[in-house]
């Protein structure tokens, strides 16, 4: 079933020069017996098995320090597991060559828990950066950036710098950047963490819309209301282990 690493430029994406890791299977994330022990001896993720398929919308929940961010960081290789196997879209990350890591990352839209905006670039430039690495023409970049800015309702702040924005606004810039490439999978680490309920729902609408268009969405969250009001698959972490994985699950933790 599993084939060795293949990098193909799939049709339709050719003009965007998006190299896609492509196997033909619908499994986007596959973790087998994965453990991550940090240098300081803390085992943040302990022997987990997680499978996420194309088109799914998944909440990752669990108390603070449960290992949610660590789980997410291993998908785009900010961290490497200390044991076990990870396949992204069928590609064995152990076999992924260093020079192909950027290609992997371009195919995963990540909304970082700490936003990771470039402080010296404006909102526009921060989002445009993800397209500049693809050498997109200027007018295409401009058009697409304003599209996503519209989506996260930040069109009027395009010229602002990150430090001139509120936490929620920075978070939305981070979301816009993650979506700009139309990646097959979007992984958001607490995308509503700094937002008021109304804006949070606005973000949820955006995520559900892109999910409806075929993008797989994985979202770590502490937002009990969202999980319970808009039920979807829930993967629950506790002390580095997956304690629950159910379709249409509930939040079931006190914050």
């Amino acid at each position, binding site marked *: 079933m599993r084939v060795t690493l293949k990098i193909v430029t799939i049709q339709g994406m050719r003009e965007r020069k998006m190299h896609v890791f492509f196997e033909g299977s619908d499994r986007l994330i596959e973790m087998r017996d994965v453990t991550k022990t940090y240098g300081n001896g803390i085992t943040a993720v302990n022997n987990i098995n997680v499978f996420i398929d194309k088109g799914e919308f998944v909440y990752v929940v669990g108390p603070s320090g449960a290992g949610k961010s660590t789980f997410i960081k291993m998908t785009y290789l900010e961290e490497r597991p200390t044991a076990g196997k990870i396949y992204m879209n069928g590609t064995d990350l152990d076999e992924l060559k260093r020079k192909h890591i950027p290609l992997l990352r371009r195919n995963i839209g*990540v909304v970082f828990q700490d936003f990771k905006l470039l402080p010296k670039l404006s909102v526009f430039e921060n989002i445009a950066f993800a397209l500049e690495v693809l050498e997109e023409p200027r007018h295409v970049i401009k058009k697409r950036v304003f599209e996503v800015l519209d989506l996260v309702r930040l069109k009027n702040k395009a010229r602002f710098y990150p430090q001139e924005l509120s936490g929620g606004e920075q978070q939305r810039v981070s979301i816009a950047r993650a979506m700009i490439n139309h990646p097959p999978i979007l992984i958001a680490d607490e995308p509503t963490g700094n937002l008021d309920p109304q804006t949070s729902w606005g973000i949820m609408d955006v995520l559900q819309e892109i999910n409806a268009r075929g993008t797989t969405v994985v979202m770590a969250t502490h937002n009990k209301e969202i999980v319970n009001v808009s039920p979807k698959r829930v993967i629950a972490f506790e002390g580095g282990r997956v304690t629950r994985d159910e379709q249409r699950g509930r939040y079931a933790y006190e914050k």
Partner: protein
Amino acid sequence: MKSRTLLRHSKEGLKNIGRNGWMSFASVSAVTIMLMVVGIFLILIANINHIASDVEGDVEIRVHIDMTASEEDKEGLYEQIDAIDNVAAITYVDRDEGLDQFIEDVDEGSAELFESLRNENPLNDVFVVETKEPQLTEDVAGEIEQFANIDTVDYGEDIIEQLFAVTNMIRIVGAALVLGLMFTAMFLIANTIKLTIVARKNEIQIMKLVGATNGFIRWPFFVEGLVLGLLGAILPVAAVISGYYYLYDLLVTEAILSFVDIVPPNPLTFEIAAILIGIGALVGVWGSLMSVRKFLRV
């Protein structure tokens, strides 16, 4: 890479120079000082080589023939010397000619004194032997010494040995200093840029996490290093060219040191300018790329 991307990298690199104004200034100063010294050394070495080869070219072996040697003996000796491999030319100077030359060389008072000696000329007839390479002088002289009908053979042993020792030492010391300075400047640049990079470490990490390749991140640094190196070369190049032209004018035209033959400034200064620009660019780029290297492992 598309030209648009190259433009982006260039702009980015130049922006970084501006943003890190003081650090850039420090890097440029380091390169300037290094290239200044390298320039001065290159001029010195070029001139020492020039003078040394001048003097070396003057080296000759004087074979003083026995007073008692007959014409046939002299002819035999000539053939023998001529048969030695590395002999380039032999000139025969008889004792009267020798005295004439000698009298010409000394000042007038002594000239008169020696003129009065003409009847008791103390000089020998001499074969003046030139070798193909100045370095061969000693060997050839040694061979000649074995032949018959010779009074003495002299070739300024001490001068030659000292000259070679001194010029070689200056060349080696000069080259070592130039190399040493180059590396010092490289590390200075690497370190100054590294200081600015530590601040940019997070940015590099973010760029990588968003999908930038190492090459994409490196390019602006390449441009930055190149520009810093080239900026650092401006002052030394100007100083070497104008300074050496001025010095040459002073020494040659004004005849302050007319007996020393120094290398004319054209094309020497322009060759050195090209070398300095090259070294500046190399040091800048190398230093800059060195400093990003370890931050790319994300």
